[in-house]
């Protein structure tokens, strides 16, 4: 009986020990960025044309825009490849300064993190294999739709699931794995951001975008809620890039057309 109490007390104590360091680690940073002179950016680098890895180098619209922002702020940029479904917890636990990963600004996400001013508009789209008979979301009855886990694509698919009669929504860790499944006929369609679907379909040539699903979403740069100083600097830099034409240059380079005027 005595030794059971001892075990219980030790057990309780070990739990408490885990808890105390956790509390201590939740402090916010004192400067603007975690490392002085460097902006670290968490990103799911399997999302072309926004971010992808070319060898060991990250490239993409987000990457270039982030580099320009960092330059405007007078600091350097470091891209930290992060799994998409841990990207927000990573920001909250200060693994990086910002999230720039084609992340749509949503009300739910705003409860977790702050967002910069929107830096690009986007919509969802329906993507199918080249030989598919599916022409729009009306043809999804009994079909399997692939999405990237925890994206606005998943949200959209779930929204229309009952009305469109979607048989199953398969969630993938990265959108590129979903594309592999689509090309092999394991799933019937993908609902995902329009620019990405267009880019990947064009590059790999086995799929096509059949419908733009208008959601009028906007991407923003995620910043830790406690770091209002950094948020301000980023917004300022972003506006500066719009004003001096750098934004237009980068946009045109990646999307072959001028950005829509506000």
């Amino acid at each position: 009986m005595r030794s059971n109490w001892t075990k219980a007390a030790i057990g309780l104590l070990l739990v408490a020990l885990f808890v105390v360091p956790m509390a201590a680690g939740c402090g916010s940073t004192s400067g603007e960025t975690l490392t002085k002179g460097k902006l670290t950016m968490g990103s799911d680098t399997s999302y072309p044309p926004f971010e992808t890895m070319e060898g060991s180098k990250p490239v993409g619209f987000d990457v270039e825009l982030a580099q320009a922002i960092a330059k405007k702020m007078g600091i350097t940029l470091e891209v930290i490849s992060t799994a998409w479904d841990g990207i927000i917890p990573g920001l909250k636990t200060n693994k990086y300064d910002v999230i720039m990963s084609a992340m749509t600004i949503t009300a739910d996400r705003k409860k977790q993190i702050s967002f910069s001013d929107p830096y690009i508009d986007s919509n969802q789209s329906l993507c199918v294999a080249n030989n598919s008979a599916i022409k729009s979301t009306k043809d999804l009855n009994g079909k399997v739709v692939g999405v990237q886990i925890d994206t606005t694509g998943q949200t959209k698919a779930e929204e229309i699931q009952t009305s469109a009669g979607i048989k199953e929504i398969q969630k993938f860790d990265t959108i590129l794995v979903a594309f592999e499944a689509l090309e092999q006929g394991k799933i019937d369609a993908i609902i995902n951001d329009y620019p990405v679907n267009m880019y990947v379909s064009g590059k790999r040539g086995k799929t096509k975008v059949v419908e733009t699903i208008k959601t009028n979403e906007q991407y923003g740069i995620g910043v830790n809620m406690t770091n209002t100083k950094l948020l301000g600097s980023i917004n300022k830099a972003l506006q500066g890039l719009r004003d001096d034409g750098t934004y237009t240059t980068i946009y045109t380079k990646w999307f072959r057309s001028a950005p829509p005027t506000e």
Partner: protein
Amino acid sequence: MDGPDPGLGLGAENISEFEKPDVSGWAKASLIMGILGVTVFPFVGAILAIVFARIAKKQILRTDLGGDGLATAGQALGVVGLLLLAIGIFILIRHESLKAFVNDFFNWETIKFWWPKVGRAFLTTLKLAVVSEFFILIVGLLVALLRLSKVKTFRVLATIYIDVIRGLPLILQIFIVYFGLFYLGLNFSRFTSGVVALTLCYSAYEAEIYRAGIESIHKGQMEASRSLGMTYMQSMRYVVLPQAIRRVIPPLSNEFIMLTKDTALVAFIGLSEAFLVGKEGMGKAANVTPLVGVALFFLLVTIPAMRGVQYLENRLSKGD
């Protein structure tokens, strides 16, 4: 009408026949640590008090030293010290950052919504493990027998299979089965791909375990049954394997526990088992609570299983 045998020293009146015992140093240390543990050094003192008390008691059992009472007191003080510390931390829980911890790991709203979903998905986890295990036990044994075969080709093929599979990460094998075999015309579903990949992988490991078990059966058994006129297969089937199987049950049971955990990897080809649902919950609820649920479901199965394996080991070793 005999009194208690004086040699046993059972009656209290016999104590005087012994010299007054020295007091165990450990017991004294335990009591001191206990006092310090309640007053000055809560955690370290209390832990040391309990540890010293245990050492003291073992020592007292072994030798003639006294001090059992002191050790008990030290241990009790240590426990009290820990409890006081725990209570103190509980009070600290009112502090914001600890509230944040509970909110992130054990969020009540999230538990109510996501843990049932995770639980249902865990049924898929179990199904995947059990179905795979059925095939693994059979294929593993076949591969082991091939590996031990007199025919050189069989031996070589089995060895290549075992080496290649054991040399590749399981997650890679899952992807190859699901996405790679497509180019050979095999388009398995996610569940089937999971079963196939897990079977291929674990059969290789279990083949080696079977082989070790078979080889551990004394050669004399095989020789004796051969000399009785049985063929190689008959000897295997009726004499060697029954004994070998008993020996390999504990390691194979451990492999099954590992298999149960490895089913989580099938999440990466999109199968809705517990881990994938937990990740989805983590994104939607924006806290870690769903994954904590996944962890608890796994422990609910793996920990009893581990104790079960230990029980099996004890039971089986009695027969040897």
